[in-house]
């Protein structure tokens, strides 16, 4: 059964998603069911990572006699849909499954009072399927299909609280952005298909040259994925969507954003890797985009009063760090000295920051959800003195805030430090901007902490109690991960981050797998 792992990791959450609507009468069973299924996928994704580290890239061909028969007899090009899983795919799969599990656990009590929960959990599982499919697939069209699944499920969840007009507004905004982005992705896929007559990522990446059509396709793919990962010119949907979505979905929605970031990396590093001249330029574009994203995000965050909205702007700003780190790596990809010297470290920083950011931002958004759960408001000016009433939430918030501001010994420091020291080598200005952003982040979280948790206890929050236990457990898991990743960054870096980085750098390995060599 172990060779069917890549198919099972898709099939089991799909199965869970279609069973969930049947629990219409007993909605708490649907919640338990979703927690169970997501827990199984966590185990599967860890096994997948183990297999990838053991055997290298795993190929799974759908509908063939054996999972590894890439070329049916008599064919010279791959024609079947296949999954091609390397280090970074498995890395993203771990993030996705872990966050779905935490999200489902948190949702158990956070949305308990709402109706239509069986659909909520079905959509949560579908969103997980979409992300997993995006990060595991080795086929361009499949990437589009899973992108759309994630987009539709995500926007339906954003608009889940349909008794609020704002939720529908945020949902349609997200849906329009994701529909336009994925249609442009499909257009680019059409261009590539017309040119090379195939949809397999590894096959196309061996054929690609720098013709005008390829450049158009690359531009479309780059712009659409940048749009979907909330990079700066098209970032306006992020705060709306993150604010309106129920807090239990926030972790999954974050991962779905970073699945688009993964697709951006995959396109730049693997699909167009043979194009050695222009990649440097693309790397610079990515780095500058990253700096702009982090700076604009944080300045917008400083003026917010809505606690979740403030954190959403910080999510934009943190995306900039990842773009910066990986962009620096992309700039020097074909310069092997510089790559070994600082490029690999920069990419490790960028990719490590993905999982770190997913963890601490989910933690922060969950504490914001907990504040909303007990106070019924998200306005910072109306809160105050909650530290004594909700000690565990306060502690979790402090851990998350310290991590996002890059204070040692939390995980944000580990990845940000890698990014500072390596981007400094490319251009000192990049590192300066990154540090200034970090300081502004700290300032803004000090403000949140002071206004929500400190101060005299307000009369209207007299009866406030700590949030229910599943929410506490979900938050504490993430807070512990924050501390563990910060204390032992070497373990995480060596076990899962550097395999992911090497998978991106070693294009030849990706291309030669699937029996194309």
């Amino acid at each position, binding site marked *: 059964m172990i060779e069917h792992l890549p198919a099972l990791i898709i099939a089991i959450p799909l199965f869970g998603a279609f069973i969930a609507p049947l629990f219409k009468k007993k909605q708490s069973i649907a919640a338990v069911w979703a927690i169970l299924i997501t827990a199984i996928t966590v185990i599967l994704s860890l096994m997948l990572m183990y297999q990838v580290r053991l055997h290298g890239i795993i190929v799974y061909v759908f509908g063939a006699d054996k999972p590894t028969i890439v070329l049916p007899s008599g064919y010279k090009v791959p024609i079947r849909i296949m999954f091609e899983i390397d280090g970074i795919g498995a890395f993203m799969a771990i993030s996705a499954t872990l966050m779905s599990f935490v999200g489902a656990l948190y949702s158990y009590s956070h949305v308990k009072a709402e109706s239509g929960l069986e659909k909520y959990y079905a959509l949560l599982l579908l969103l997980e399927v979409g992300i997993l499919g995006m990060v595991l697939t080795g086929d361009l*069209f499949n990437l589009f*299909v899973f992108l*759309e699944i994630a987009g*539709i499920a995500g*926007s*339906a969840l954003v*608009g889940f609280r*349909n008794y*609020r*007009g*704002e939720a*529908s*507004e*945020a*949902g*349609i905004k997200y*849906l*329009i952005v994701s*529909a*336009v982005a994925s*249609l442009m992705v*499909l*257009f680019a*896929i*059409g261009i590539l*298909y*017309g040119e090379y007559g195939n*949809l397999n990522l590894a096959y196309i990446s061996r054929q690609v040259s720098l013709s005008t059509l390829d450049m158009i396709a690359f531009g479309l793919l780059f712009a659409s994925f940048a749009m979907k990962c909330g990079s700066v010119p098209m970032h306006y949907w992020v*705060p*709306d969507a993150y*604010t*309106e979505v129920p807090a239990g979905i926030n972790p999954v929605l974050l991962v779905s954003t970073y699945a688009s970031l993964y697709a951006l990396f995959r396109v730049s590093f693997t699909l167009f890797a043979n194009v050695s001249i222009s990649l440097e330029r693309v790397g610079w574009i990515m780095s500058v985009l990253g700096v702009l994203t982090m700076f604009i995000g944080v300045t917008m965050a400083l*003026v*917010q009063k*809505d606690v979740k*909205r403030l954190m959403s702007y910080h999510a934009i700003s943190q995306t900039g760090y990842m773009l910066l780190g990986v962009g620096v790596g992309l700039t020097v990809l074909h310069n092997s000295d510089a790559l070994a010297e600082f490029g690999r470290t920069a990419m490790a920083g960028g990719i490590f920051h993905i999982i770190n950011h997913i963890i601490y931002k989910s933690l922060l958004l969950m504490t914001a959800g907990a504040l909303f759960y007990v106070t019924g408001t998200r306005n910072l000016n109306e809160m105050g003195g909650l530290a004594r009433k909700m000690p565990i939430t306060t502690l979790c918030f402090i851990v998350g805030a310290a991590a996002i501001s890059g204070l040692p010994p939390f995980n944000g420091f580990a990845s940000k430090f890698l990014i500072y020291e390596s981007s400094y080598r490319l251009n000192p200005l990049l590192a300066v901007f990154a540090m200034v952003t970090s300081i502004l982040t700290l300032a803004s979280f000090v403000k949140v902490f002071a206004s929500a948790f400190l101060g005299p206890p307000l009369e209207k929050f007299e009866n406030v109690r700590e949030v229910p236990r599943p929410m506490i457990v979900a938050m504490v898991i993430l807070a512990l991960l924050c501390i563990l990743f910060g204390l032992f960054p070497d373990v995480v870096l060596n076990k899962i981050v550097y395999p992911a980085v090497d998978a991106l750098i070693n294009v030849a390995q990706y291309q030669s797998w699937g029996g194309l060599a």
Partner: protein
Amino acid sequence: MNGSIWVNFPFIVVALLLAIGFYTIGFKRNLIKVVIGIEILEGAVNLFLVALGYVKGGYAPIYTLAPPEAANPQNMVLPTPQALTLTSIVIGVAVSALMLAFAVNIYKHYGTLDVTKIRRLRG
């Protein structure tokens, strides 16, 4: 491919439809019209895919009651572009249904479909 303008005619239409679609999404104030704009974009992309797969004198890749000259595999077109288009249509149905549902819900809460007035979330 004899280089005449008619070979490229579908692609010219695709470009026109893309332009109309983006214009509609960007400049129309009614939310339903924005949804229509996305549908136009989708039509453009679908047309592009179908036009890619068109071969003059080709036969549909179906053996059931096919004419005898289609049996030569050279005469059958590759079904992949059609399959891609169908998948994209299926996804498009889901997207448009969800968008219209949001539009209905927004009209219920805001009493308008004017996108310049649906702005409770900002800042």
